[in-house]
């Protein structure tokens, strides 16, 4: 466990931090007692940074089994009067919305903050949803910082706001804030308080319909009060820009043009105005829900047209439009709805400049002249691949070989994790990837709908624990003829190796029971569970083939250690890897290895007498290519191969 000492620097120090680290510091400064998350890019490192500090500073930190659980743990603390925070990427908000929208009605007794990271441009997500809609849906205030300093300070403030309103509060960031670095000046650390006490009050906490109905007016009153509090939020600022330059002189400054910018788009706006020398009254809006009405009434005075700049969806824009109509303000509103700004993708200075160019006769973006455009046309994206030595490659290889030899086709329902890189050629091992845990239930649906081909679901251990368990139980109850293959490396790999219930420790470094997936599967009513080592491809293929025809759901656990972790261990133990060797005279250049495995340790030599495979230094010695080469041209001496630990099928445990 690595402690990030930067987060413990003294108040007043100026430190270079990622947005994620800045928020972690904000949580520490607020003295939160309970901190939870489920790993998800881009916000994973907030809890990754908090976990190793938890015991030292006296708070609790966990990567919970899934987002809903993470939120409910935090909510329990907040009802017991302990400050708590739940961190999630935007997709996790879909899961927490169920408890969140009811906790909004009960209210909280200590600050409950939800940090949600949206992913405009979809750097690492399967959609680009805007979680601010959930603020409006649940009457939960939304704060939007523009940089690392604000991210830290507003996170701390969010606890205070939550306590003032007795309502959960969202801090909404975007992936670019999470991963970018900012210089951040630190404040004082508040020691966390964890003396929870739950004061019973069924009328408030037992949300059956009659009791919940009675509390609805309280929630409405709270969100109305939030709008009033937001009037004096210190991060809402009106900035006057006179021909590109910030001015404090209100006289003789005059413009009919306004821009409302939220989040990290504000600096883009400043940069565009500076270069195009346009005058504007800019509102940097930190409280995007609920809107501060008086502030907006004052702001709109004298303005004839306003451009709204925000990431993802036109959430502020829709509210501003409604506000202007309600208040009888005559103003033209430009933004995403009239396509002045793009609604799809991540904003940047050029796109903001493009919006300004549509409204004024100015030019912001430097032109891409011919040589630059020609270069753009030459570029193709690199195809991401599973790591060299990744056991998932061996699992996919075995599945595809088993289906090929079976000659009845096959549908492979995929899930969320490293292994969804298996979609790319040449592995092309999955046919769907929808959301965490969808593979097994959708496989059942395909079976029940009459799909005749063999139906398989592939899911990792972390995802199975997250939401695969209920789906498998459902498949048992309805006797769905599906074959589930759990890719088990006993850790949440994709997001950077966060511990899960299979790992044997928690985020704070405490030892925990190593939950065996085979036991869980047995417990769900599937007696015939097979555990096979991923690199034992012959056995894995054979096991899959034999299972395909059996009725009901079958589970095979394909077990192998994450290649990145194995590499790290070897660096500590100074154990050397024996890389695969290519017998140049035997290799015919058939590329079967490449076409079947697509390992990033494969290079190619076309110089010399014959074309042949070259093994690159990133080879991890897994010897999968040794098993696959039809000419036996690749080798690793048997005694140097990484030994297979579980060679036999474990049946009927």
């Amino acid at each position, binding site marked *: 466990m690595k402690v990030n000492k930067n987060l413990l620097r003294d108040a007043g120090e100026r430190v270079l931090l990622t947005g994620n680290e800045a928020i972690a510091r904000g949580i520490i400064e607020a003295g939160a007692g309970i901190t939870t998350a489920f790993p998800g890019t881009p916000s994973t490192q907030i809890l990754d940074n908090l976990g190793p500090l938890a015991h030292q500073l006296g708070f609790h930190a966990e990567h919970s089994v899934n987002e809903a659980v993470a939120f409910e743990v935090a909510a329990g603390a907040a009802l017991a009067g302990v400050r708590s925070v739940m961190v999630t990427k935007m997709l996790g908000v879909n899961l927490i919305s169920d408890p969140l929208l009811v906790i909004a009605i009960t209210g909280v007794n200590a600050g409950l903050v939800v940090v949600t990271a949206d992913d405009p441009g979809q*750097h*690492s997500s399967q959609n680009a949803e805007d979680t601010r809609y959930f603020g409006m849906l649940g009457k939960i205030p939304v704060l939007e910082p523009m940089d690392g300093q604000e991210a830290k300070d507003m996170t701390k403030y969010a606890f205070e706001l939550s306590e003032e309103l007795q309502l959960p509060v969202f801090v909404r960031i975007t992936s670019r804030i999470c991963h*970018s670095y900012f210089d951040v000046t630190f404040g004082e650390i508040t020691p966390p308080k964890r003396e929870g006490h739950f004061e019973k009050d069924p009328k408030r906490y037992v949300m059956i319909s009659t009791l919940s109905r009675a509390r609805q007016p309280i929630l409405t009153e709270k969100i109305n009060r939030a709008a009033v509090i937001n009037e004096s939020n210190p991060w809402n600022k009106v900035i006057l820009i006179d021909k590109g330059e910030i001015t404090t002189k209100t006289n003789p400054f005059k413009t009919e043009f306004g821009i409302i910018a939220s989040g990290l788009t504000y600096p883009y706006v400043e940069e565009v105005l500076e270069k195009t020398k346009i005058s504007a009254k800019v509102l940097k809006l930190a409280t995007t829900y609920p809107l501060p009405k008086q502030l907006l009434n004052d702001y709109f005075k004298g303005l004839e047209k306003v451009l709204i700049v925000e990431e993802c969806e036109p959430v502020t824009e829709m509210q501003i439009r409604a506000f202007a109509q309600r208040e009888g303000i005559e103003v033209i509103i430009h933004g995403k709805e009239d396509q002045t700004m793009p609604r799809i993708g991540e904003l940047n200075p050029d796109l903001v400049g493009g919006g300004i160019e549509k409204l004024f006769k100015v030019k912001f973006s430097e032109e891409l002249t011919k040589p630059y455009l020609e270069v753009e046309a*030459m570029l193709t994206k690199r195809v991401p691949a599973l790591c060299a030595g990744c056991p998932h490659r061996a699992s996919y290889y075995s599945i595809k070989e088993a289906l090929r030899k079976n000659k009845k086709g096959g549908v492979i329902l995929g899930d969320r994790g490293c292994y969804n890189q298996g979609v790319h050629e040449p592995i092309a091992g999955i046919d769907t990837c929808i959301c965490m845990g969808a593979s097994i239930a959708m496989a059942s649906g395909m079976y029940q709908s009459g799909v005749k081909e063999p139906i398989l679901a592939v899911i990792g251990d972390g995802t199975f624990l997250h939401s695969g368990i209920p789906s498998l139980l459902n498949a048992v109850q309805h006797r769905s003829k599906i074959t589930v293959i759990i890719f088990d490396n006993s850790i949440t790999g994709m997001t950077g190796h966060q511990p899960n219930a299979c790992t044997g420790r928690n985020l704070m470094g405490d030892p925990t029971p190593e939950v065996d997936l085979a036991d869980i599967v047995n417990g769900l009513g599937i007696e015939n569970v097979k555990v096979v080592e991923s690199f034992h491809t012959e056995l894995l293929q054979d096991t899959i083939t034999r299972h395909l025809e059996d009725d009901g759901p079958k589970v095979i656990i394909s077990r192998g250690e994450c290649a990145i972790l194995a590499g790290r261990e070897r660096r500590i133990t100074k154990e050397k890897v024996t890389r695969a060797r290519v017998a140049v005279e035997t290799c015919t250049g058939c590329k079967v290895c490449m076409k079947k495995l697509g390992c990033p340790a494969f290079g190619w030599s076309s110089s010399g007498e014959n074309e042949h495979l070259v093994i690159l230094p990133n080879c991890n010695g897994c010897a999968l290519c040794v098993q696959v080469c039809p000419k036996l041209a690749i080798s690793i001496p048997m005694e140097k191969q990484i030994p297979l630990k579980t060679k036999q099928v474990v049946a009927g445990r």
Partner: protein
Amino acid sequence: MNIIICGVGGNGVILTTRILAQAAINEGFNVRIGASHGLAIRGGTVVSYLRIGSDAKGVIMPQRSGDILLAFEPLEALRQMKLMKDNAKVLLNNEPYIGVDAHLGLSKYPEIEEIISRLSETQELVEIEASKLAIKAGSQVMTNVVMLGSLASSKELPIKRDTLLNTILDMVPPQTVESNKRAFEYGEQAFHEKQN
């Protein structure tokens, strides 16, 4: 000043950017680093933007506003061309990483000569054999330090040579200080040889 640092996963793009940013902070400048990484570790494209002084505004740079490109890989250098001003300084580690996808024809890796000629057409290109020099200094891991040595020699940076070197030595494991210093000096020499 706008500096772009690019490469593929494993090149140390983010660490290099942090070193440069810390050195700039040590010289009293404001900085911003724009970064986003999803699949960095899996051989994908990695790029970060370092904005120093009066340019330290948004975390994303406008196109054609880059002053310096520090590229650990030729194709990745080409990918960032649209961010560069005409005649900007491009320091290139001329060691291509051709993924298995390109060997299979799933993506296209241009001829290295083509990449060099395209880069030279609009930019001031300096090729550095940084990977090879890093191996000579002790390990390929120090490729980025070789590149930083070359960058220090280029006199393009508003950061003093010793400030940069000391920042690097502060941020690397103590037992590697000597070899990192050597790597930095190899980078300096390589740049001077190119200029002569």
